C-alpha cells in the first residue's frame, strides 16, 4: 500500500513544483520574446533590408564583427593567465588586483571612455601617450579603430577574467601538483594540465567577452567617436539613428545585432560543448 502511494504522492507534488519554477522562468523568457517580437512588429522587412543596404551600416557591421572578435581574443589572452594567477596563488596585494579587475564591471561606461581619453591625452612632463603613438610610432589611437577595440577590450576583459577565474577554481589543482612531482615545471603543468581542462571555460570567456564587446557603447562614443565608415559600430549606429528620429532604422539595426549575437553565441556554444548544451 505504501509502495503504491509513494509514486502518486511524488507525481502530485511535482506538478506544482514545475508550474512554479517553470512559470517564473517563463516570465523572463516571455519578456525577452515579447521584446524581440515588439521590435519585429515595429519595423518592416523593407525597413530592415533598407537599413542593411546602407553602406555606412554595412561598414559598421564589418567593424563590429572585427573589433568584437579582436577584443574577445585579446581578452582571452589576458584573462587566462590573470584568472589562473588569481585562482591558484595567494600573493601580497591579491585583494587589490582582484578589486581592480572588477572596476571596469562596476564603472559607468561613459566614465571608462572618459578615463581612456584622459589617459591618452594626459601630459606627463610634456610627454603625451597619444602624441607619442601618433608622431613616433605612427599608430594614432583616439578616434581611430584601435580606440574601438581598446574600449571594448577594457570592459570585455574584466568579464573574461571573472569567467576564467571561476573556471580554474573549479579545476582541482591536485593534477597539476602531481604533474610537478613527476618533474613538470609550473609552466608545463599549466600548459599541459590546467589549460586543456579549462577548454570550456575559455570558450565561455570568449563568448562573454564577445557579447559584452558587442553591447559596448559609451566608452566607444567618448574615446573612439562615431565617425561614419571609420569608428561607427552598430551600437553607436542605433544611438545616432535614434538621435535623428529614425526609429525604424534604429530598430532594424538592433534586430541585426540580436541576430549577430544569437549566431555568434550559438557557434561558440557548439564549439565549446560539441553540442548546444
Amino acid at each position: 500500500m505504501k509502495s503504491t502511494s509513494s509514486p502518486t504522492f511524488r507525481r502530485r507534488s511535482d506538478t506544482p513544483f514545475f508550474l512554479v519554477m517553470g512559470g517564473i522562468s517563463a516570465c523572463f523568457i516571455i519578456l525577452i520574446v515579447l521584446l524581440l517580437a515588439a521590435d519585429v512588429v515595429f519595423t518592416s522587412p523593407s525597413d530592415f533590408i533598407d537599413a542593411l543596404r546602407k553602406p555606412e551600416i554595412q561598414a559598421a557591421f564589418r567593424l563590429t564583427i572585427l573589433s568584437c572578435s579582436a577584443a574577445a581574443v585579446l581578452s582571452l589572452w589576458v584573462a587566462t593567465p590573470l584568472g589562473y594567477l588569481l585562482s591558484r596563488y595567494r600573493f601580497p596585494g591579491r585583494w587589490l588586483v582582484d578589486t581592480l579587475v572588477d572596476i571596469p564591471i562596476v564603472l559607468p561606461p561613459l566614465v571608462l571612455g572618459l578615463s581612456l581619453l584622459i589617459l591618452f591625452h594626459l601630459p606627463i612632463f610634456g610627454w603625451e601617450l597619444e602624441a607619442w603613438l601618433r608622431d613616433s610610432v605612427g599608430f594614432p589611437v583616439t578616434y581611430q579603430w584601435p580606440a574601438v577595440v581598446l574600449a571594448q577590450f577594457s570592459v570585455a576583459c574584466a568579464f573574461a577574467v571573472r569567467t576564467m577565474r571561476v573556471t580554474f577554481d573549479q579545476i582541482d589543482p591536485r593534477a597539476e601538483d602531481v604533474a610537478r612531482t613527476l618533474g613538470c615545471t609550473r609552466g608545463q603543468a599549466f600548459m599541459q594540465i590546467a589549460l586543456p581542462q579549462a577548454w570550456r571555460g575559455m570558450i565561455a570567456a570568449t563568448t562573454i567577452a564577445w557579447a559584452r564587446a558587442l553591447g559596448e557603447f559609451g566608452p566607444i562614443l567618448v574615446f573612439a567617436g562615431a565617425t561614419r565608415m571609420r569608428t561607427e559600430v552598430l551600437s553607436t549606429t542605433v544611438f545616432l539613428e535614434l538621435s535623428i528620429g529614425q526609429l525604424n532604422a534604429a530598430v532594424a539595426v538592433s534586430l541585426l545585432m540580436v541576430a549577430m549575437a544569437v549566431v555568434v553565441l550559438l557557434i561558440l556554444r557548439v564549439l565549446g560543448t560539441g553540442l548546444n548544451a
Partner: protein
Amino acid sequence: MNRTYLLMAGSLVALIGIVVMLGDREKPSSSGRAVMLYCAASNRAVMESIRKEYEQEFDRSVDIQYGPSQTLLSSIEVAKQGDLYLPADDSYLNLGKEKGLIAEEIPIAKMQAVIAVPKGNPKSIQSLNDLLRDDVRVVLASPDSAAIGKVVRETLSAIDRWDGLDKTTKAYRGTVNEVANDIKIGAADAGIVYDAVLHTYPDLTFVEIPELAATASQISVGVIASTEHTADALHFARYIASADRGLEHYGNHGFRVSGGDTWADQPELSVFAGSMLRPAIEDTIAAFEKREGVKVNRVYNGCGILVAQMKAGQHPDAYFACDSEFMNQVHDLFPEPVPVSQNELVILVQKGNPKGISSLRDLSKEGLRVGIGHEKQCAMGWITQNTFREGGVQQEIMPNVTVQTPTGDMLVNQLQTGSLDAAVAYLSNAAGASEFLDAIRIQGIDCSVATQPWAVAKQSPYPNLASRLFQQICSTESQDIFAAEGFRWQNLGKDATDE
C-alpha cells in the same frame, strides 16, 4: 596538448588577421588633411548631406564625430583635437568659450520651441492650457540637462506658467529627441520640442503657441581654439553657414535660416577705412586674412574721399570711419554703425617746441606755417575747422594755414621735413614720430575728439565674415594696438575698457 598549442596559435593568427583587416578598411583620404568636426547627433541628417556636397565640390575630406553636445565638449577639453564644434545650441559654445576651448563662432540657423503632437492632433491641443488637461500625457526635456528644457523653463517661469506645467508633466527626458520618440511610439500625447527636430518625424506635427514665441535656440559652429588648421576649418565652417550652400540644407531640414554669407572659395572682403586707422588695424587684418584663408581688400584714405567714392557707386563690405560725421553721410549703406574708438586732435610741433606753441591761439602767430586736414576730404579737417570755430580762433589761424592735406600722415611727413612749423592732427598720427615731434593737447574743446565707428554694409554678400573681422578688431590684442597708437577704446562691452 597539441590542441592547446593549436588554439593559442590559431587565436594569434586570427588576431593578426583581424588587425590587418581593420587596418585595411581605412580609406585613404582624398586629398590632404581632413577637417575634423564634432557635431551634435541631432544635426547628423543635415550635416551628412552638407558633407557629401562639400567633399564632392572640393575633393577635401571631413571627419565628423557625432554625439551628445556636452559629451563632445568634454572630449574637446580632454583630447584637444579637432577643428570645429557644432553643438545642439549655442549655450554649449558659450560654455566652450568660457573654458577657452572655442575661438569664434559662426551663426547658422535657429530652432523654435513648439508643442509636438501626433499627426492629426488627436487630443486637439491648441494652447498651453491644453497641456494641463488630465487626459493629456506630457513629456518634456529635462530643464537641467537639455537646452530646450532650460529655455522653456526660463520663458514659462517669467510668465508664471512653469509650475503648473511642471506638475502635470509625466516625465522628463534627457534629450529633445527622446521627447519626440515618446510621442512617436505613443508613450506621450504631447511634448515641447524644437520644430526642426520634427523634420525627421513624419508622423508628428507641431502647434505654435504665443507663450513660446520668444523661445528659440541658435545653432552656430565654433572654431576650436587649439586647431592649427584654421584656414581649412573656417573653409568648411563658412561652407556650412553660407546662404547658397549649407543653409539651403538646413532650410530643407526644417531649421529657420536667414542671412548668411554668399559662398566663395576664397572670399574677398572690401574694407574702407580712414587713413589714421591704418596703423591700428593693419596687423589685425593681416592676421585675420591668414587665419581665415580669405582676402581683405582695404582702402585707406581720407574719409571725405572714401565717402565720395561710395556715393559714386563703390560699395565696400565694411567701413571704418574716422568720425561719426562721415559714417552719417552714408547711413543708407551702413544702417548700424558701432562706435569703436576715439582719437584726440592735438597740435604737433617740432621736437622741443622751438616756436613756443602752447594753445590753439598760438597758431595765429605771425609767420607760422601751419598744416591742417582738408575740410572736405577727411574727418580730421572737418573736426579741425569745428574746433577752430568752437575755440573762436578760426579767422586768426586760417591765414597761417599753408597746406591742407587729406590725411594726417602727410602733415607728419611735412613737419619732419621742416616745411611746417605746426600741424593740427590726431594724436595717433604722432604715435610713430615721437622722436621728431611733440604733441600739445587742445584743452577745453569737446569737439576736438573724433569717434571712429565701424559698420557692415547692408548689401554686403559677406556680413558674417565682416562681423568676424570686427570681432578680431575688438579683441584684447587689437585694443592694445589701438592704445599704443594713441586711440582711446570706446566702451563697447565688458572687455572693451577705456584705455
